[in-house]
């Protein structure tokens, strides 16, 4: 369990962050300058809070009241920094092996070859960091932190400089480390959907204060809608059950009490729970299930609220099982479909628009 409850003042900036996470993956969101990096620095021990405490699985990292301050090298907290901070006098290989050397032998659980393969840095091992491109540097930095086999891994927007392809490759690695080696993680990102599927707890920070906190289901929609404008950032999280497979077409049927969602690829064993993230702009509204289109996934619900914003409206739909689904549509469409609070409505979801990388097995609490 990670417990953070700290206050810090730097210059005129006041940070007050408190959260605790029983499970392993905490996501930290917030605008530029909101205090995310400062929070990570407090956890890793780079800076000392003015007040409060930080604990991980019963180990106290810092507790101002009790006068405890564990120095960073004894915390065994791996950090992937916003700037890669590679050692310029060492080759990529030496950089990667640096932390490993300090890890107790029994803890060297993460395999060197596997990491360099997944990160695609096998060809760079002999280079000095100065001869790497921006993205290459960041990949090496991720590898270095992973290979130190830490008790807790902190990521400070590690993928900002990576292309989509690399991101899609690295995310599963991060997930695997979390699951196979049970390394707890705190992950800072701007791109809210980047890791929300992995997160057990989402902490939204705004101007140094916690603005929202909770599981993805509770917080994500709110967190994703930081700006009224950004209908593209508004998403919903649905908890579903894996019902079966269509082996011929490689599809998985996900059952929700309000309907069915078809997913490309596998999502876990039949009967298991999973979590699906659906962007509001990917939902098509209709008065009846679709005919003769490529859309296969249909959920039925009741309109809970409609918020207009310029030419668009954000329609909140109550599904069975206390799940909410957001759908973005033009005001015109809302009018033509005659949608009003309380109306029945069908939500059509394109399977191809569902990112299977954003479907995660829900954790057993």
């Amino acid at each position, binding site marked *: 369990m990670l417990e953070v409850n700290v206050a810090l003042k730097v210059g005129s900036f006041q940070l007050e962050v408190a959260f605790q996470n029983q499970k392993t993956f905490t996501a930290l969101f917030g605008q530029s300058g909101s205090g995310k990096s400062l929070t990570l620095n407090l956890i890793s*021990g780079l800076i000392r809070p003015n007040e409060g405490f930080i604990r991980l699985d019963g180990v106290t990292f810092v507790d101002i009241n009790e006068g405890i301050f564990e120095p960073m*090298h004894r915390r065994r907290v791996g950090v992937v920094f916003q700037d890669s901070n590679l050692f310029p*006098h060492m080759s990529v290989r030496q950089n990667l092996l640096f932390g490993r*050397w300090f890890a107790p032998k029994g803890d060297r659980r993460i395999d060197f070859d596997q990491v360099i393969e997944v990160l695609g840095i096998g060809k760079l091992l002999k280079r000095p960091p*100065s001869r790497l491109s921006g993205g290459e540097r960041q990949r090496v930095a991720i590898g270095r932190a992973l290979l130190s086999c830490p008790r807790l891994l902190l990521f400070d927007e590690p993928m900002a400089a990576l292309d989509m392809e690399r991101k899609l490759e690295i995310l599963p690695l991060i997930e695997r480390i979390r699951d196979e080696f049970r390394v707890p993680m705190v992950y800072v990102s701007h791109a809210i959907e980047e890791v929300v599927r992995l997160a057990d707890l989402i902490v939204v920070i705004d101007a140094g204060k916690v603005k929202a906190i909770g599981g993805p289901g509770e917080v994500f929609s709110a967190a994703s809608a930081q700006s009224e404008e950004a209908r593209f950032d508004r998403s919903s999280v649905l908890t579903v059950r894996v019902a079966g497979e269509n082996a011929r077409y490689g599809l998985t049927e996900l059952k929700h009490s309000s309907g069915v969602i078809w997913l490309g690829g596998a999502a876990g064993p039949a009967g298991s729970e999973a979590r699906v993230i659906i962007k509001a702009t990917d939902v098509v509204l209709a008065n009846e299930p679709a005919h003769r289109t490529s859309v296969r996934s249909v959920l039925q619900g009741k309109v809970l609220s409609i918020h207009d914003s310029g030419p668009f409206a954000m329609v909140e739909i109550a599904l069975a099982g206390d799940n909410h689904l957001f759908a973005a549509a033009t005001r015109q469409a809302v009018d033509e479909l005659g949608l009003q609070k309380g109306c029945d409505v069908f939500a059509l979801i394109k399977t191809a628009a569902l990112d299977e990388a954003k479907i995660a097995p829900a954790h057993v609490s």
Partner: protein
Amino acid sequence: MFHLNAAEWTAIWLSLRIAIVATLISLPFGIAAAYALARGRFPGKSLLNGIIHLPLVLPPVVTGFLLLMLLGRRGALGPFLASIGIVLSFRWTGAAVACAVMGFPLMVRAMRLSFEAVDRRLELAAGTLGASGPWRFFLVSLPLAFPGIIVGSILAFAKALGEFGATITFVSNIPGETQTISAAIYTYTQVPGGDESALRLTIVAIVIALAALFASEIFQKMGEKRIASLE
């Protein structure tokens, strides 16, 4: 035309030995002092800084007398050192100590500058990877301060070649034991007709110094090459 007599060769070899030993013995102390001054926060830091600079500020003769009174046979620490087998007075080892002391401020200043220029975030990154203070020092700070270590060493070495004021005062000017090139040059300048000999030895000193400088530049470039950046 350019003939060096046996005594002069002796002085040259002795100078080299003294300069090398002086540089090597002051190296660990210099590095420690430079790092402490660059990164440390402790009471008496200013005082330490001041003491290290003294040999630079005082006339070398004074430093030499102080050494004589401190480490000489009848000095404050001399008998103790003698009891553990270290005899410095009127030995080449004493000359090395005098040169080391005189070069120390130069060495420390250069090294300190380089330690201060090391990106602290790299040390912190090493810390998060599990490296404790000493490891951070040896694996990150020290290699990154390499240019300053080299520069500090070469300054100390050059100073040791040129030093004679403190040396001659502390360990005298005994041929074959404590007479360095510089002391020999000095002696030649003190007598009528010695100018030519002085000039010859001066040229030798210059050649040695240039060779050392050249070696240090190459050494430093080798270090930099590893860190070379395209931009």
